[in-house]
């Protein structure tokens, strides 16, 4: 049975349709296998060969991969939540309540989005601590650390902008306080707050601005930076794996 399946799969991989999509075709030589990675747009960011120890739990605790996983969950649940959410006053609050009590699976999606957001912030910090205490930020990986700092900022901004969207008391006062912290910037603080809120008070303009930032601009920035972050892993010589002390 197994051999039949394998033969069938090999036949499929040699059809012209398959070969137009995956140019590498069948075969298990090193060349074929490296081409399979190089010629796939999703995989070509990664190296065709990695140290087997880099795939073990110990060097990374898989914290980066887990962070990416929470990001994928957030994108998927976030897009679904967008189908029932109007970023307008006072409809936003009612939509949030509808998601909790009326929409099928709405409460599950909303809670999954919320808990994943908490988990992502936690995992980003854990990932940074892990990288820091293992010294994996050192040359040649120092620029990837910088990209990581920007990803931390994008993550925190995503959290902050998402916090306003339920339009409840917690959201309103948190963003009131947050925007007044921005106002404390010397000289331009007042302008920053005005641009942030699209006015002088936390109101419909602020909700719409935070919505666009949360659903479009910041996720795009995150995807771009994650792309660079992953590509740099390969360019900087793969994941940091210390030499074994007693081989």
């Amino acid at each position, binding site marked *: 049975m197994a051999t039949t399946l394998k033969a069938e799969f090999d036949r499929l991989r040699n059809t012209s349709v398959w070969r137009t999509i995956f140019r590498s075709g069948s075969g298990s030589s090193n060349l074929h296998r490296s081409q399979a990675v190089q010629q796939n747009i999703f995989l070509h960011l990664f190296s065709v060969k990695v140290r087997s120890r880099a795939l073990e739990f110990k060097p990374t605790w898989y914290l980066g991969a887990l962070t990416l996983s929470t990001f994928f969950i957030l994108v998927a649940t976030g897009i679904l939540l967008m189908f029932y959410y109007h970023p307008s006053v006072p409809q936003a609050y009612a939509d949030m309540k509808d998601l909790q009590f009326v929409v099928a699976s709405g409460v599950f999606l909303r809670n999954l989005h919320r808990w994943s957001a908490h988990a992502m912030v936690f995992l980003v910090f854990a990932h940074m601590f892990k990288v820091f205490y293992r010294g994996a930020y050192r040359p040649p990986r120092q620029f990837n650390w910088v990209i990581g700092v920007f990803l931390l900022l994008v993550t925190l901004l995503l959290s902050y902008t998402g916090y306003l969207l339920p339009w409840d008391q917690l959201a309103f*006062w948190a963003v*009131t*306080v947050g*925007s*007044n*912290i921005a106002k404390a910037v010397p000289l331009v603080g007042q302008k920053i707050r*005005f*641009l942030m809120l*699209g*006015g*002088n*008070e936390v*109101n*419909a*303009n602020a909700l719409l601005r935070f919505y666009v930032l949360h659903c479009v601009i910041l996720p795009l920035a995150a995807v771009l930076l994650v792309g660079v972050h992953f590509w740099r892993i390969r360019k900087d010589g793969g994941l940091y794996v210390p030499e074994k002390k007693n081989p």
Partner: protein
Amino acid sequence: MSDAKTEGQANPAAGAVPEEECKDCSRREFFARLGMGSLVVAGVGTGLFSYEFFSPNVLFEASPIIRAGKPDQFAANTVTLDPQSGIYLINGPKGFYALGAVCTHLGCLTAWKPELDLIACPCHGSRFNRDGVKVAGPAPQPLPWLKVWLSDDGYLMVDRSSPLKAQEFVKV
């Protein structure tokens, strides 16, 4: 020392090319500068345009001037919060006056606590007396005194936009 050497070697080679092989170098440089210059102009213009675009020209926000109510609505020696407009109207011994109810720390709406005879902020614990003077907490400024006047039809009016420099009372 080694820097001077490399420069000395590089300069004649670099200098030799434009004179012999590059007759339109000044023209090329002119166009390169023109291109870079127009990019800079476009970049600055985009920045200004974006700033203008993101600054709303019309705001649908409440008027800073509000009608607080008739004077006889406020009993003597009381502090009344209007949460919608964010002001206190106080009927004190010297007359009526108004305070901004938004905490000067980070903008939370404060509340009047009659049992403490204090105005208290729920966010970070700032406390003010009924003259707006801070008595505790992180607030950097006292609550602002606002201009109060009696309208022709007998209502107490408050202007939230211009804080007063000195205490003013309205006698009715």
